[in-house]
Each structure stands twice: as structure tokens, then as C-alpha cells.
């Protein structure tokens, strides 16, 4: 057993961290947060040049063909840096869906563009409030023509294409759900950007009107593909969340060492120590669960559904807890626009809802454990 990243993977992490420290400082995040741009184009280009966008895409499709452990490593660093780019939508969702279910032609058409940074992709799944479920999908597909509204769609206003979950049957079973690949620049789709709790990432409402879409995967398998895509994305996003949690913990620790009150660094007060210790505990448990998820993802193990839900829940809790308590450790300064604490607080709450809520994943985890236990 070796439950650790390899030395090469650690080198990749250091390389990514150095790159993001230079190209993605907090002010780059703020530029997008404050509306100067919908995402950081220069950073996106840089990520492509570094080969990070295609790290898990096979070389045959223009990627580095390194694999998913390497992608986990990159994802963690993206989370630490709060990278204001459509990485999750494009790489965890769109690319994974294509690699899982795309035809040779579809892969050839889009994967190289993803790897080179030429195309931004996303998944159009949600239609307003609620949990992911076949019944919640109302957007209709009649012989490849889509009509309906998807909201929110992460990076919907900046994406070039989307994987769209649509209803093309009326049996009431999950087999009614099919996936379509839609070129968002080809007309028939209007995007409206929505203000969100984390403006450093785009959220949009997409309206499909008589919009052409080409089937992705077998028509009746849309939902099962979607489930597998969400599980894979859950592990990758969990690494992003753990990266953010670790950074929030470091910020709190550094401030506690630096800040003096009552004549002592506040980090010498037991109350502050114990807040930080509990943040460390949450981040550590989440990291360990993420490693389990990474193993399951990279080996496509039968444990993936459980491991993904476990990593997702644990990392969501850790990032929300650490970003919240980091503000508390900072006191009043932590609530200023000027300090970066709120950037992590905003991102932690946004990521907690992407891919479905914590409650949804908690229910999924126990359902999956129950099934396995019954089997």
C-alpha cells in the first residue's frame, strides 16, 4: 500500500503552486469578483500552455494523458488560489462527460480544444431549486431539438458548448433522460448572467429555444452517465475544496501569529488555538477522504460512488468550516472587503452547492452504503 501522491505528482503540485502564485494572486480573483471580466483569460491561456487543462485528457485528443491523480493535484492548487476560471465546468464536467460517453467524432471535435484552452465547456443540469434527479429535468428534447431553461449553469455565459440533460421520453423513469452536446455559439441559446454569492465565478441562466443538440451517449443512458460524471466531478471538486480549506487555515494561523491583543499574539489564547485546531482536524479528515476518492477515481474502482460522496461531504464541510472560522479568527478585519477572507467564504459556499447540496450528497452516501450492505 502507498496512500500518498508520487514524487512526480508532488513535483507537479509544486510547479502548479508556483505558477498560480505568480499568475493568480488575490487581485486577479478580485478583478473577476468586481466584474472587470467574466473570467481571467490570461490565466486560462496560461493553464493551457502549462498543459493543466488537458492533464487527464489522452494524448490522442491533444491532452497530456497523465491521468486523474495528476488532475486531483492540479484541482487542489486551483482551489488554494481560488482561480477565477471555468476549470471545474470545463475539465471536471464537460471533458469527463465527453471521455465517458462521447463518440470518437465528438471527442475529436472538443477535447483538443479544451486542452488547448480554445473551448470552454459546461454541464447544463439544474432547472431551479432542488436536488439532481431525473424527475427535475423538464427541458424537452424532441428529435434533437431542445426547448427549456437551465439555471443556474456554472460558467454558462462564457461557455462555448454545454452537455445538456434533457427529457426525451414520458415513461417517468430515469431512462427518459438523455444527454445532448450543444454548441452554444450556434444559436438557439440565450444566456443571462446571474449575480451570485461568489461573483468570482460566472453563473448563468440558459434559455434553449428550438435549439439543435447532438446526442451524447445512448439516449436511454443519459441519467446513468450523468451520475457517473457527477461522482467523478465530486472527487475533483473535493480536492479544490480541500485546497481552499488548507489556505483558509493557513491564513488564520498566520494572522493568529501576527496579530497582538491584550499584549500577546492572539494565537497564544486557548480559544483561538482550539478554533484553529478544529479547522486543522476538519481539513485533515477531508484530505484523507479525498485521497480515498482519488484512488477510486484513478482506478475506476467499484467503491467510487461511496468514495466520491464521502470526499464531497467531507471537503464541503471542511472548506465551509475553515473559511467561516478564518473570518472569526481575523475578527473585524476578516469582514472587510479589503482582506481576502471573504473570497474564501464566498467560494466555499458556492462550491458547497455546485453538483448538488450537502444534504443531497449525505442522502446519496447512506443510500449507496445501504445498497452495498444489502448486497
Amino acid at each position, binding site marked *: 500500500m502507498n496512500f500518498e501522491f508520487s514524487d512526480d505528482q508532488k513535483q507537479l503540485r509544486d510547479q502548479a503552486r508556483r505558477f498560480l502564485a505568480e499568475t493568480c494572486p488575490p487581485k486577479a480573483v478580485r478583478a473577476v469578483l468586481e466584474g472587470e471580466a467574466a473570467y481571467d483569460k490570461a490565466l486560462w491561456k496560461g493553464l493551457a500552455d502549462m498543459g493543466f487543462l488537458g492533464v487527464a485528457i489522452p494524448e490522442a485528443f491533444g491532452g497530456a494523458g497523465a491521468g486523474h491523480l495528476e488532475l486531483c493535484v492540479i484541482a487542489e492548487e486551483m482551489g488554494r488560489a481560488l482561480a477565477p476560471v471555468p476549470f471545474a465546468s470545463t475539465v471536471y464536467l464537460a471533458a469527463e462527460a465527453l471521455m465517458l460517453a462521447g463518440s470518437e467524432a465528438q471527442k475529436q471535435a472538443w477535447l483538443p480544444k479544451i486542452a488547448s484552452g480554445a473551448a470552454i465547456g459546461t454541464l447544463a*443540469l*439544474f432547472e*431551479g*431549486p*432542488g*436536488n*439532481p*434527479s431525473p*424527475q*427535475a429535468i423538464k427541458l424537452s428534447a424532441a428529435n434533437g431539438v431542445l426547448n427549456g431553461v437551465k*439555471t*443556474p449553469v456554472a460558467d454558462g455565459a462564457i461557455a462555448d458548448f454545454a452537455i445538456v440533460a434533457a427529457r426525451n421520453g414520458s415513461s417517468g423513469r430515469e431512462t427518459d433522460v438523455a444527454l445532448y452536446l450543444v454548441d452554444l455559439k450556434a444559436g438557439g441559446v440565450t444566456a443571462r448572467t*446571474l*449575480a*451570485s*454569492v*461568489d461573483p468570482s465565478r460566472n*453563473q448563468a*441562466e440558459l434559455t434553449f429555444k428550438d435549439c439543435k443538440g447532438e446526442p451524447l451517449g445512448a439516449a436511454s443512458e443519459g441519467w446513468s452517465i450523468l451520475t457517473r460524471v457527477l461522482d467523478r466531478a465530486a472527487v475533483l471538486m473535493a480536492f479544490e475544496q480541500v485546497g481552499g480549506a488548507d489556505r483558509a487555515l493557513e491564513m488564520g494561523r498566520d494572522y493568529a501569529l501576527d*496579530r*497582538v*491583543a*491584550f*499584549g500577546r499574539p*492572539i494565537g497564544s*489564547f486557548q*480559544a*483561538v488555538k482550539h478554533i484553529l485546531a478544529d479547522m486543522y482536524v476538519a481539513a485533515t479528515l477531508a484530505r484523507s477522504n479525498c485521497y480515498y476518492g482519488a484512488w477510486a477515481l484513478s482506478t475506476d474502482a467499484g467503491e467510487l460512488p461511496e468514495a466520491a460522496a464521502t470526499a464531497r461531504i467531507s471537503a464541503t464541510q471542511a472548506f*465551509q468550516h475553515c473559511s*467561516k472560522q478564518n*473570518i*472569526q479568527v481575523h*475578527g*473585524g478585519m*476578516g*469582514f*472587510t*472587503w*479589503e*482582506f481576502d*477572507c*471573504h473570497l474564501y*467564504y*464566498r467560494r466555499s*459556499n*458556492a462550491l*458547497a*452547492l*455546485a*453538483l*448538488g*447540496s*450537502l*444534504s*443531497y450528497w449525505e*442522502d446519496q452516501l447512506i443510500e449507496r452504503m445501504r445498497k452495498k450492505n444489502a448486497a
Partner: protein
Amino acid sequence: MNFDDTPQEAAFRAEAREWIAANAPKQYEDELAKASLGRLVLSGANVLDVAKAWQKKKADAGWACLHWPKEYGGRGSSPIERVIWQQEEGVFGKLGRMFIIGHGMCGPTMMAYASEEHKRHYLPPLASGEKVWCQLFSEPAGGSDVAGLRTRAERDGDDWIINGQKIWTSGAHYSDYGILITRTDPTVPKHKGLTMFFLDMKSPGIEIKPIKQANGQSEFNEVYFTDVRIPDHQRLGAVGDGWNVSLTTLMNERMSIGASVATGFPELFDYCNELVIDGRPAIDDRAVRAKLANWAVKASGLKYTAFRSISALSRGERPGPENSIGKLVAGSMIQEVATYALDLQGAAGVVSDPAHAEVEGKFQAMLLRSPATRVEGGTDEILRNIIAERVLGLPG
């Protein structure tokens, strides 16, 4: 043990209710009812103006700062009458937010330490909202540590000359006066050598910079003092006695904040009664119920703890530090409530745009404002220390 009004109380309630029905700004009732932490919008009106107008109207009719003596602009009411008024004023009470510091902290401090002449001059316009007051205590280097204050006051004839910086001054940008704690003697131990003043916020040498908050709003300010002159007769309490003066003030802050602090539970309960998840009412979901029940008993416990304080007040007992629990409990609770409300919305919970978000983005605004409630007016950690030391008698 009863909630019944005495005949006098019933008469007072009837009078208050009648006057409010006839005079309150009804046109804003709905928007005020919808207002929650981090979100108070009055369409086509400036909240400040509406609030001042309502306060002046109350003052002219003798309904402002009810528990203050008449000669200072109050009504000389009993604590219980004040509570009855609050119950009757209902959502219009939310307009009083900008006066909380002035009425809850500055007023009581002035009443305890200012000269009779000053009280008669300054308190009535404070009560009527014509003049807004702020408190200038916290400093960048200080944080929770009031004893570590650095802003200097140096004697110069009949004046004091102030140099230094304050922070977290809420409403400084629209305040006319403020109470200010300064260090008048750097040579003695930290708690000693402090002195309290009140001053005109328009005095030469004062510079006010709003602080942009994490949620984008600006309720607080940095205030810079450069050779600001304060006449000695505006000193509150003896030279060097500022620490004791500030304790009165701070306890009043915790009480006023504690009494009025929001938990977010009523909003969440209403929302769960409307919301449908996966085809079922959220309120029928056992997981949702378990969460709601735990918050329900906390909210209820805070409500009846306040009632117990009121009863103590009306028996003439002075409420003590046990009031710290209000903000301690509600502060972290409202943050959890807001987080859970977004969770219930699923992916759509990320949307904050009032035009597209669930219930006009009420819970998103609450989420982004809530971290401040665990810090303002005493951090959770400070409040726990206060309970442990002043209520339970553990060593400081």
C-alpha cells in the same frame, strides 16, 4: 407567571396601538416585514430619511426613547411599557436600527456622566433622531482589547487635543456627535489613564473613511483624528476613569444588540412551509424537521430569556451580563440557518440576484452579512469570557 397586561399596561398598549395605526409609515410596512439581516430596501426612498422622519414623529407625540426622563426627550415610561411599545411598533421598529448605538449606548452614558446642562441640550435631539450619535471605541491595534487603546488626548488649557485613529465606528458618516474614549496618561497601566469625551463629529481635524465590508455594504467607518479640539466640559467622568465609563457603555451595547439580534429562524420556518423538495413539502422531510426543531428551541429560549430579563427589569433589578447569551447564541445560529437555507435550495442557492433568487435572495444576503454578527459588539470568545467570569465567577 403570566403574560397578561395589568389594567394600566392594557391602557398604555391601547393608546400606543391607536397612535401607531394612525401615524406609522404604512407604505413601507411590507418591505420592512420582509427585511432581514443584511437586507433592508425601501423602494423609492432613503432608509435614513424615512427612519429620521418616523423617529421625529414619535418624539413629537412623546413616543421616543420611552424609558428616558421627559426632560431629556423621553416619556419616563417603565421598562415594561417600553417592551409593550416595541411589541406594538412591530416591523416599524426596524427603522430604529440606525439609532441603536445613540439610544442604547451614547444616551445612557451621557445620562450617567454628562452635566445637567449638557443633558438637557443634547439628549432631546438625540431622542428625536434629529441628531445621530456614534461611539468611537475600537482601534486598529486594539480589536477586542479596549484597554490597549492608543488614541491620545492631551490637555491644552480648557481643551483637549485629540490625535489618533478609531475603527468599526458604525454610522460615523451620518453622525452628528460621538462618544470617544482616549488615553490621557500613557504612563500608568493599560486600564488606567483612559478618559471619555463626547464631541461634535463635524469638528475640524476629523476624517471619516467608510469601510467596505465583505458583503459589499458599508455600515462601519475608520475615523482619523488630527489635532481635534474638545472642550474639557465635554469630558464624561473623571480624567483617568474612562475604563469604568466604557464598561457601562459596552454592557449597554451587548444588551441592546442582544435584545434585538436576529436568529433567522422565523424566516427559515416560513420558507420551509412554502418550499417543495423533490415533490414533497420541505417541512415534511424528517431531516429538515430535525434541523428546524433544534433552531426552534434556541429561538424560543432566547425569546423567553429576554422576557425573563424584562420581568427582572420591571421588578427594578438591573439586567447583568447574562444578556450576553443573546448575541452569542443568535450570532452563530443565523449563519448556520442561512447556510442551511441555501443548502435547501440546492445548486440554485448560489444565486443572490433578488430578481432571480429564492425569496428575493433573503438568505444569500443573510449568509454574506452573518459573519459580522459573531464579531461586532464583542466576539463569541469575549462573550464566553464574560459569562464565565462575570456570571459564573471564574478567575479572569
